[in-house]
């Protein structure tokens, strides 16, 4: 079975954020999958990946929580690929995979807790965790995507923002930096590639993997606002009229702190923030509402209509 075929039907792990502030990402991911003929099967009775809260208190409990998601996929659903669109979930599942492979103590804790919880222990290597970018890039590819485009994104200048967790730390992503065709941890390009295939013009954006301040948005909102403001202004200076995102935490942070920057710092940056799946969905001919543009905090409807989208 080729990678293309392998990724046509995957276990879908939306994670907590996509059921809350990132609902538009959930909606648009599913809509794009359907439009592309890809099958998403949601992981049964999934749980939190451990995110930042659990990991800060006890990293091995986070490893267990992530491993349970993968155990469910492989042992209860017979699926060997889990697709996680959220950078936090994606990162944590990859980290759990790495820890189970390389840390005997983590494996022992996961085994003990799995037995106590009454499910099969996840063994490293049983599941391949991928991001939504890998999913579309590998299952459809740029050529396949370009062939399906109904409304080109031409005329849109996009700054692709990947955030800090999609590529870090490098050692938990052994498939990246693996030569031609693979993703780069220093200059990620999968989102650039997909949106370019849909007709968009990508701008050279130096802060594409910089911190958005998401992890300390509650404890230190002012720093988060300044970090986001800097990202928005840099994207604008780079010539972008849209920032494309692929992480619900980054996306919410950019949208909320865009408003907060105007209120608290008096600085307004007129730039739109959209999930890459929303942009791809509209390129595939879906209506803006179908990909949840109305669920975003910032209003992009008029802008998109002016561009002939949605």
């Amino acid at each position, binding site marked *: 079975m080729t990678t293309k075929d392998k990724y046509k039907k995957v276990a879908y792990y939306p994670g907590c954020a996509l059921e809350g502030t990132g609902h538009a990402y959930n909606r648009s991911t599913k809509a794009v999958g359907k439009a592309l003929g890809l099958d998403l099967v949601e992981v049964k009775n999934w749980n939190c990946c451990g*995110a930042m809260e659990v990991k800060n208190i006890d990293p091995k409990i986070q490893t267990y929580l992530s491993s349970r998601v993968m155990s469910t996929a492989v042992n209860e659903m017979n699926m060997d690929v889990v697709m996680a669109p959220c950078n936090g979930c994606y990162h944590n599942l990859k980290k759990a995979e790495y820890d189970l492979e390389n840390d005997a103590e983590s494996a022992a804790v996961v085994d003990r807790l799995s037995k106590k919880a009454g499910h099969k222990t996840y063994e490293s290597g049983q599941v391949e965790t991928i991001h939504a970018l890998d999913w579309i890039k590998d299952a459809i590819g740029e050529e396949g995507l370009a062939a399906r485009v109904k409304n080109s994104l031409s005329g849109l200048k996009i700054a692709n923002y990947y955030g800090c967790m999609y590529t870090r730390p490098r050692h938990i992503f052994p498939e990246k930096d693996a030569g031609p065709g693979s993703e780069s941890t220093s200059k990620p390009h999968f989102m650039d590639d997909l949106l370019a295939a849909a007709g968009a013009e990508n701008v050279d954006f130096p802060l594409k993997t910089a911190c958005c301040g998401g992890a*300390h948005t509650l404890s*230190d909102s002012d720093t988060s606002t300044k*970090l986001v403001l*800097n*990202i928005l202004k840099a994207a604008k*200076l780079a010539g972008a009229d849209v920032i494309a995102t692929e992480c619900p935490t980054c996306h919410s942070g950019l949208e909320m702190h865009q408003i907060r920057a105007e209120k608290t710092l008096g600085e307004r940056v007129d730039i739109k923030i959209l999930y890459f799946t929303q942009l791809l969905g509209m390129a595939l001919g879906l209506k803006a509402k179908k990909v949840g543009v109305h669920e975003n905090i910032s209003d992009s409807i008029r802008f998109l209509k002016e561009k002939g989208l949605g």
Partner: protein
Amino acid sequence: MRTLQELESVIDAPLATPDTAATAEALLRASEEVLEHWIVAHDLEPTNDTREGFRLLALHRQGAKGDPSFNACRETCREVAYHYNLVTLQPESTDITDRLEMMKMVSRHLYLFVSGKLQVAELGDFCCSAKPIRAADAPVPKERN
């Protein structure tokens, strides 16, 4: 070593476009000093080594040693170096003002990232490089069942 507040002033100062190379140099030095703060806070002596011709990159490597979460500013450091090269090696470029402005924004991001983590207590280690500083005061996790 200048204080973080002084470094913020340097980074936020209006652009001195007539001497773009000097401005780029000032931003690079300020970025280096931001990293020096991080290293000194960890009871280390900031290195004077260079990597790929930049002390900034050597300082980043030193700051990330044993603390991979500090790599969240790795590309930001590399972008500071890249824009420094753009400004100083192509001074006649018609984009020189935008390039310098972008270098300023990237330097500001580095400053905000590092200074935010240094100054604010109660941050976790999700991407936070401040945890080792307060680790001695952290409560010991309860025994797992």
